[in-house]
């Protein structure tokens, strides 16, 4: 009974993410309409046989735009998470393991960064880095890094007190090897959980920044800017908001389910042997 639930979760997660990846792959070769093609004759058409998800205020096909948008949104979020996790984990590991002044310096930096709201910080960084997709990814990644540092550091602080760390040093292993071989693998679970929820924050922040004109510039569709531009039509053309909304929700659900499965898979204690 209890074992079937995680399997269902893994299946559902794979289904959602698999579907997304398929749509992204397809969007490179084919979309029902040109996502940028204007057709002022058919503005704000509700979903129909021709336009599966209706059309927007310029008569562009919403389904085609959602497909293309998936590519950019997913890419930006993934790279944001990767940057935040790689840098955050490295610094958190160093802070937690070395302690002393390294820890104090890194924690002061983290506290300073955390005292700004993430989006505001990203906004400031984007002004420096320039409004490009690269700038967006780096800015968001750095904005989320402090959260990762904190989580990894606190996990490492408790792991390094365990006797198997001392055992590794007694064997003659170097501190660096011990950190990679014994500390890091035991800190994976919180990192995996954080990374999956961060994927969601990144999707939403990307839309906020795009809305402010600092993310991806308007004609290029992303779920975020589709959602943002649907606002004036909330009452007349509700599908404009619902379609990217569903895309974001389904993606987040899929990522979270897969993240949980990944965490369980990586932990030998939850693995039936």
């Amino acid at each position, binding site marked *: 009974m209890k074992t079937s639930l995680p399997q269902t979760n893994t299946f559902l997660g794979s289904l959602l993410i698999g579907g997304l990846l398929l749509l992204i792959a397809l969007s490179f070769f084919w979309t029902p309409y040109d996502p940028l093609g204007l057709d002022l004759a058919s503005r704000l058409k509700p979903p129909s046989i021709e336009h599966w998800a209706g059309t927007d205020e310029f008569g562009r096909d919403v389904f085609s735009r959602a497909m293309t948008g998936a590519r950019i949104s997913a890419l930006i979020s993934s790279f944001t998470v990767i940057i935040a996790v790689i840098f955050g984990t490295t610094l958190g590991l160093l802070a937690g393991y070395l302690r002393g002044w390294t820890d104090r310096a890194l924690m002061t930096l983290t506290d300073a960064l955390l005292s700004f709201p993430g989006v505001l910080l990203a906004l400031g960084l984007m002004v420096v880095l320039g409004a490009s997709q690269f700038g967006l990814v780096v800015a968001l990644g750095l904005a989320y890094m402090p959260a990762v540092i904190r989580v990894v550091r606190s996990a490492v602080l408790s792991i390094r007190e365990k006797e*198997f760390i*001392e*055992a*590794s040093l007694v*064997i*003659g*292993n170097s501190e660096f090897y011990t950190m990679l071989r014994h500390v890091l*693998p035991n800190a994976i679970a919180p990192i995996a959980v954080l990374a999956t929820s961060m994927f969601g924050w990144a999707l939403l922040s990307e839309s906020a920044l795009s809305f402010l004109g600092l993310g991806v510039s308007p004609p290029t569709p992303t779920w975020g800017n589709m959602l943002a531009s649907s606002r004036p039509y909330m009452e007349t053309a509700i599908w404009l908001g619902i379609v990217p909304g569903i895309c974001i929700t389904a993606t987040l659900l899929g990522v979270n389910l897969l993240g949980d499965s990944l965490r369980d898979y990586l932990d*030998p204690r939850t693995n039936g*042997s």
Partner: protein
Amino acid sequence: MTDTSRLLAVSGLRIESGNGKVVALKGLDFEIKAGEFLAVVGESGSGKTMAARALMRLLPEGMVRVAGSIMFEGRDITTMSVPDLRALRGREIGMVFQEPMVSLNPALTIGAQLSEGLRLHESLSEEEMARRMVEMLRRVHIQNPEACLSAYPHEFSGGMRQRIMLASVMLLRPKLLIADEPTTALDTLSQREVLDLMVELAKDFGTAVMLITHNLGLVARYATRALVLERGVLVETGSVANILALPQHPYTQRLVDCLPRREPRAPALIEDDAPPLISVRGMRVRFAGRRRLFRQSAPVTAIKNLDLDIYKGETVAVVGGSGCGKTTLGRSILGLIEAEAGDIHFNGMDVKFHSRKARHAFRLGCQLVFQDPYSSLDPRMRIEAIIAEPLRHMPEMTPKQKKDRVYETLSEVGLSDFVGRYPHELSGGQRQRIAIARAVIRRPAFVVADEPVSALDMTIQMQVLGLFQKLQSQYGFACLFISHDLAVVEQIADRVVVMQSGEIVEQGSRDAIFDSPQHAYTRALLEASPAVDLNLLRKGVELAPALQQ
């Protein structure tokens, strides 16, 4: 036996987990007479704690009583209403838990916690309550009891907290005191003090005591009657002298056999003028003081100017109460804790811990076995990888040789089938054997064993000690055996070093220390150690019928 003397009668008590998969107790029957001292003996998983908790109707989440009755002075606890039950808890039946460090609320003063029970069960004026609390604290030998009332738990040591806990329970003068491994977390001296006080108070108040323990030494010293539990079944019951001297059930016999005992040891092969393997001179270790709000308290000296020689192949036991610096000593010799001053010579070579190379060579020859088998193995590595890890630093061995060595070592510790398992799939004793395998796989010259068996059950303790001795005679490594359990030390040591507050107060051969201790502290330790003299007991039991005739 008259009915009036019977305080508690349990019959057919059966406890299962909610889904019926785990049966903790399979129909237990026993009784406790008013004022008697009953011991419940068993190893982990025997159901002894479940039995105690059932008496208070405090079973852990998921465990249910499926059958049986618990009659306390003619009332059935199992069917009692909740208000009646609350009136019973504390007032009639008191309980002392194992962990003194967590059983007192750190956010409340001692006075507030002691008065809780009095407030609930009696209506007394504030002055009367304070008077009673002070009186009780004085009885459990807390100095300055008035000040203690407004102090917080963290200001007291483990032994003192357990005495305070005892005071809080005995304040209400319960008819039955349940003590669940009350001194397992304490060192020998505090253990003695707490239990002596418990017996004294129980006698004065006519309280019956149900002592749950795995330590037969304590049973022999304090209890009059004992129950022996094995996996939820009561296998033997009777007077303590009978159970220990003439155990009937095979399981009880096994337990008694596992009592550590002194056997003549072949003297370790020390050549007369051979230099010591490890020689420590003038070691001093200090820890930085705790940081307070505005100042830093003075540094704590853990080891003061200590000299120690360890010869090839011998077992040197370091004994002492908690906080005497014995653990620090082991860690400092291995360089895990940096010593402030002092020299260590290994095989006649000066080990300078600032030199990476010398340290590395020293590390290869020395190993450590930890106390807690649950945290000393990396939970994410398979057994094979854990045991093989020390061989990383032996570049002269081929992969084939390494693999063979891993399997050879695993079979030596009797765990050949566990290669692909993870640590969490192993029991405590098995994990400790893995930890020992990891320590000996590189054939070290010197092993520090820090309380290697104190977290294990009696029978497992014996197996692990036996394995350790076997490997030691096989590979001839010297061992620094750190322990607070003198019974174990008596069995395994060649030489004993007694430490008190960072200094060696006495050292000598095992027999010299145990038979004619010179220092007062050594005598106090030996006196407090709950050893069982089986020969004496047997004589007593054999004599008893003769005397009656």
